[in-house]
Each structure stands twice: as C-alpha cells, then as structure tokens.
C-alpha cells in the first residue's frame, strides 16, 4: 500500500511538471471555450427572453464539454513525446497508482477549465434570472467532471497507438458521454430555472450523473491495467 502511494505521488508530480512545462496546454482549451461562447452568441442571435435560460445552460455545458474533451485527449501526449510512457510500461508500476495519478491530473485540469468557463458564461450571458456562480451548480459540474475525467483518461490511453486519434477521440467520447451531458444539462436546468433542490435532483438526473461517474471510474480503474500492459 505504501509502495503504491509512493508510486502515485511520484507519477502525479511527474505528470504535473510535464503538464505545467507549457502554459499552452491548459490555456488553449480555455481560449477555445471563450471562442465557443462567442460563436454561440452569433448562432443564437436575438432570442426570445423565455428561451434564454434554457439555451444558455445547454450552450455553457456544451462549451465546457468540448473544451474538456480537447484537454483530456492530450493528457498523455507529454509522456509519449519523451518516451516516458514506454519506459513506465516496462517498470513494475501498479496500474492503479498510474491511473489514479492521471485521473487526479485530469480532475485538476478539468477544474481549471470548467470553473473559468462557468464564470465567463455568467459574465457574457448577462441574464439576471440565472446565475452560474452557485454552489449547487458547482456540485453538478464537479460530478460531471468525475465521470468525464475517468472516461477521458481511459480513451486517451486507448487512442495513443491509433493513427486516427484526432477524429476517433470525439467520435467515441461524445456518444459515450451522452448520459453525462444530458444529466448535467437537465439537472442544471432544474436547479437554475425550475429551482429544484439538490436532494430532489438526486433521485432523478443528478442520480444518473452519480451512477455514470461511479460506472466510468470503476470501469476505467479495472481496464487501465490492460491498456498499459507491455506487449
């Protein structure tokens, strides 16, 4: 157990250093989110006031999901460039420690993208009836991140050897995360527009979000070892 903890800490610190070596890596998804919010405002044009909250909740979550997908798809790239990945595969490292270190990294990057996106959306939407800066919404966003992050790490590891990963990643990521996107948007709408409580939401959409999170995390933890096994 102690050995696994040490491995986890070493891998996490190596991953953070590799990620932080270039600010472009986490800044570009954020700039992408900003661009998406701008494009959505063009695409929607003038919207009937009654539809504004519903449209912008959906647009904000979609923006965040796109930006997160970009960040997650590149999470193992620094390792591949420095051939760290191949070396790690030949070391006696516990796959659980390796997965958890990457998962925690992804959660950190995810929060760094998700939170500013919510703030930007709140500023740009300029809609007084809804606010993206609330604790319950943060809970929903974080719950989505737990599910998305696990699948993000797993798909990123799968796509490492694929020749078509630029197209394959979104092609698989978005259909697989449909329940998460639906649950995040619907529970946010219920919270912001219909003013339901978190407890009430837990028995419906938020419950689905939690179940998806548990399922993706467990699956990813179980399957990661198979993906990094040396040939």
């Amino acid at each position, binding site marked *: 157990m102690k050995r696994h903890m040490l491995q986890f800490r070493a891998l996490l610190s190596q991953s953070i250093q590799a990620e932080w070596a270039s600010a472009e890596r986490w800044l570009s998804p954020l700039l992408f989110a900003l661009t998406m919010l701008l494009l959505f405002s063009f695409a929607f044009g003038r919207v009937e006031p009654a539809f504004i909250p519903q449209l912008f909740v959906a647009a904000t979550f979609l923006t965040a999901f796109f930006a997160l997908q970009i960040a997650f798809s590149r999470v193992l790239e620094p390792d591949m460039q420095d051939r760290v990945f191949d070396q790690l595969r030949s070391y006696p490292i516990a796959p659980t420690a390796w997965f958890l270190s990457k998962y925690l990294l992804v959660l950190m990057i995810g929060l760094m993208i998700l939170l500013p996106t919510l703030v930007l959306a709140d500023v740009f939407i300029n809609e007084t009836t809804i606010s993206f800066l609330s604790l319950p919404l943060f809970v929903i966003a974080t719950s989505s991140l737990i599910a998305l992050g696990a*699948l993000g790490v*797993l798909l990123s590891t*799968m*796509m490492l*050897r*694929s*020749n*078509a*990963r630029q*197209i*394959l990643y979104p*092609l*698989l990521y978005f*259909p*697989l995360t*449909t*329940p998460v996107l*639906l*649950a995040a948007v*619907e529970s946010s709408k219920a919270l912001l527009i219909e003013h339901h409580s978190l407890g009430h939401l837990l028995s*419906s*959409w938020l419950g*689905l979000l939690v*179940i*998806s999170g548990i*399922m993706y995390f467990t*699956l990813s933890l179980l*399957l990661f070892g*198979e*993906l990094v*096994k040396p*040939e």
Partner: protein
Amino acid sequence: MSNAVQQDRRSLLFGAGAAVLLLMAWIWALRFAPSEQHQGEVYRIVYLHVPAAFTAFLSAGFLMVFSLMTLIKRNANAALWAKATAEIGLLYTVITLATGSIWGRPTWGVWWEWDARLTTTLILALLYAGYLIFHSSMNPGPQRDRIAAALGVIIALDVPIIYQSVNWWRTLHQPQSIVRAGGSTMAPEMLVVLLFGFLAGLLMASWLLYLRFGNLRLQQRLEQYTYDAQTKGE
C-alpha cells in the same frame, strides 16, 4: 472431400436456409399478415424494423461477451468474433435507422425526429462505427485485441445507460408493445409473423457473422505470413 470444403458446403446450406426463411418471413409479412387498424399498410415495415433493432442491440451484448473473453481468456479468436459482431451490429443498426425513418415519414410527417429510441439507435451506430474505425487504425497484434476489447466492454455497458437516459429525456416513439410487463399488446396473428421474422433475421445475422469471422481469420493469417516472410527475408 477435405474438411474445409465440407465446412464451406455446410455454411452455404445454412446461409441458403436462412435466406429462404427470411424470404418467407417477408412474403408472410407483406402479403398475408393482417394490416394494422390505424396505420394501414405502412405498418408492415415493422416486421423488418423490429427484428433489425433487436439484432442490433443484441449485437452489443455479444460484443461484450467476446470482448470479455478476449480480456480474460486471452483468446485471439474471440477478438475476431468481437470485430465481426460490431460489423453485423452496425449493419443492422443502419437497417433499423433506415426503416424507422421510412416508417416515420408517413406516420409522424418527418424523416427524422429527436425521439428517444431513434436517438439511442443513432448513438449506437456511431459507437459501432467508432469501434470499427478504431480497430482499423491500430497495428495488428495482441495489444490491438486488448484495447479494442476494453472499448467493446465500455460500449456494451454504456448502451443500457444511454438508452435509459435518452428515454427520460424525450419519448415520442410508441411505448413498448412486444417485450413488456404484463405481456405483449400486439395481436397474436401479428406477433407470430414478427417472431418468425426475428428468428429468420437472427439466423441470417449468425450466418453473416460466421462468414465475416472466417474472412477476418483468413486476413489475420495472411498478415502473419507476410510478416514472417519479411522477417525471414531480413
């Protein structure tokens, strides 16, 4: 007569039998089955649509079984079966979407509607396509088999959750009338045609699966021979 020739002959006989049964099912459905009271003749497409949909979703279950066999038993043949299953699954999903769309035009007045089951089926088609593109974008070998198997497990396990979530989101499609608690609401003379069509379609899918598996195994052997020849040449 060699074993391979005998096997080929048996496979052809099975395929011909499945094709005859399928033809009989279609003739029964299009000519002799009673027409539906409200929808009239357009309803008959259901005899092709529903069996195709069942087979498409059933393929996801088989994809999981073969993927787990690849991961747990390290069975290289199971990896080929898994790929063949995804191909058949995609074929039947496309048939489901096309027939659903043709039925939707006169019934709903549109070719496409973001109804729960249509959306789920489209997502399933995307997942099968993604799995197959992923498979073909990797170099052959045990690593590809393992990674594709992991993807197969995720896809198969995610399908029921996607189905349920989209169902919660929006439903325009008629409620379940065949497999439901309290028994089917379908008239027995219609249900029997549907079940016969399902059986015939399933037999045809099994034959196609077997053929495709044979092709993939042959392809794998050829790749291995080419690789061995190249290594000896070096």
